[in-house]
């Protein structure tokens, strides 16, 4: 299918491998090497941006499982991230739990909350479910704002930098290694999940849930599993976010963030394993461009209104989201695949 000319598979193992040819292996290893040596030639500022990219990628991977593969639209992903972030802040902060355990428990707690709000998916879908997840977002953030004994409301909670045994991740570079390693693991897990029986069942539920039921798939169980997994990743992302940022408030997980995540997923490409990565990198870098360029534009053109710098980024982002849906609904991942195909076929494109 996506093999270069003249390459054949001689065993089942090579047929199912994700990376199949020597060239692909070389490219993959070189890519990983380049990524993991970023701290040596990028300044701190850009490492920080890349940390954010890593965290967002994990969240989007979760959203991709839920929305892209299983077709259950969730517009409350930032809320589920908040659950993970607060779990880490409380467990690691107040109870001094080791970071890895807190990370795992954050994922599980976010997953369980996700399960709770996924229960209505038994009877409804589409817009009704989207509204439920919006309600989930508002309820979770309301609790974070008002359960002041535990979350300290809008004051927020301080979180120490993560540490595993003697390793303490308190610099940008060490944070980078921690976050990117976990991101790579998550990407690997999600890619393999999508190829497994579970992933195929998700896709069947997405494409036609009634037909999937007739085929013998327990639709409700798989929907709930998708909610659990999707929110589990959100919890992991939230946990990493909490220890990376060092301080969390409910303001970090607003409804706008949830929309942003949906947008990133759409721009990257729904139901693909490369989509979340491309989308996140694209949007986060665009965000940096806007924050860097907006003051420049404001200074050089004195006539523009004073809200320009703050309003520009939601405006551009909303516009891009609409444009992608109208012009390129399959997202950047589709473009990437087209590029790969044309590269593979070159120079004989037939």
């Amino acid at each position: 299918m996506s093999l270069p000319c003249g390459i054949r598979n001689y065993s089942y193992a090579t047929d199912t491998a994700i990376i199949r040819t020597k060239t692909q292996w070389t490219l993959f290893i070189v890519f990983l090497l380049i990524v993991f040596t970023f701290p040596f030639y990028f300044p701190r500022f850009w490492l920080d941006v890349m940390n954010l990219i890593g965290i967002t990628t994990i969240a989007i991977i979760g959203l991709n499982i839920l929305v892209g593969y299983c077709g259950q639209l969730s517009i409350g992903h930032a809320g589920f991230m908040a659950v993970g972030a607060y779990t880490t802040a409380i467990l690691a902060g107040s109870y001094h739990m080791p970071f890895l355990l807190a990370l795992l428990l954050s994922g599980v707690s976010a997953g369980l909350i996700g399960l709770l709000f996924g229960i209505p998916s038994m009877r409804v879908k589409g817009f009704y479910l989207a509204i439920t997840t919006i309600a989930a977002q508002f309820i979770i953030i309301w609790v974070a704002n008002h359960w002041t004994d535990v979350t300290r409301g809008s004051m927020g909670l301080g979180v120490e930098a993560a540490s595993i045994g003697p390793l303490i991740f308190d610099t940008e570079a060490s944070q980078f290694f921690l976050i990117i390693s976990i991101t790579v693991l998550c990407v690997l897990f999600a890619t393999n999940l999508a190829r497994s029986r579970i992933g195929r069942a998700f896709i069947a539920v997405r494409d036609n849930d009634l037909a999937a039921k007739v085929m013998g798939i327990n639709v409700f169980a798989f929907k709930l599993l998708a909610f659990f997994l999707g929110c589990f990743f959100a919890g992991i992302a939230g946990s990493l976010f909490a220890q990376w940022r060092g301080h969390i408030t409910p303001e970090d997980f607003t409804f706008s963030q949830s929309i942003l995540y949906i947008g990133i997923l759409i721009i990257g490409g729904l139901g693909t394993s490369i989509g979340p990565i491309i989308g996140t990198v694209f949007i986060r870098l665009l965000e940096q461009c806007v924050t860097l360029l907006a003051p420049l534009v404001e200074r050089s053109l004195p006539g523009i209104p004073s809200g320009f710098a703050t309003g520009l980024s939601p405006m551009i982002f909303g516009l891009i989201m609409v444009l992608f849906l109208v012009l390129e609904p399959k997202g950047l991942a589709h473009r990437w695949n087209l590029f790969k195909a044309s590269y593979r076929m070159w120079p004989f494109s037939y």
Partner: protein
Amino acid sequence: MEQLLQYTITGLAVGMIYALIALGFALIWKSSRVANLALGQLVLISSWFTYGILVQAHFPVWAGMIMTILFAIFLGWAIERFTLRPLIGQPTLSLIAVTLGLGYFLEGIVIVVWPISVAKLPVLFPQDPINIGSAVISQEYVWAAGISLALFILLSLFFKFHKMGIAMRAAADDQLAIQACAVPINRIFSLSWIFACIVAATGGVLISSIGGITSALIETGFKSFSVVILGGMDSFIGCMVAGPLIGLCENIGAGYLTSIIGPGIKDLIPFVIIILVMLFKPYGLFGEERIERI
């Protein structure tokens, strides 16, 4: 007891405004099966536009109202023409996501054009309070409730008897069949968005003439979703019943629960209602349950 009467009356009046905004949602859903999640932002931008016309450009009130309606018509037409029409036939997910992106875009425009975050519209209605028994209610609320009731009756009659209204209902039922009957489906969708924007603008002006213009209007839009969900998505009468119900729950709940749970409970109640409705009666009080076939 006196308190209860006060909460009830305020709740009913506020609920009528929620119902009006929810009508804007039901209009679009009824004719094109598109869920408009940019409702709050539409309310926000039309309130700010009214502010710009009346306060910043010093137009008289009647001219300002006409300009607001014209703006709403233009907005509705532009949204349908440039975002929804290319997406006809796409999956639900794209249709929902496109309105989300649209909302984000509109919010950005509001921030760019009106960077002041709080403003007050000039007084549109007489302000003297009205006494009902022992309860007191500001006259603005009564006006707002009256206007939303009038709009509801107009829209219901339109959908029931006018040729275009019947065509709109038919379009919601089966798009292919209605195209085969040579009904201009593009015009129907366009018209439903225009109506929805006018309704949203009216709701926006009413609500912001009472409470001022803040970004909380977006949250008001989300609260109206609880009205839509409780009433049933494709039912006008559902909106008009559920709106006051939600207003009642919000105000009575806030009145009695604040001392138990703490401040801010008011903002939580509509969302809890959404979850409860989803769990127990997902198609709402008056909604039509659709049976799917493969």
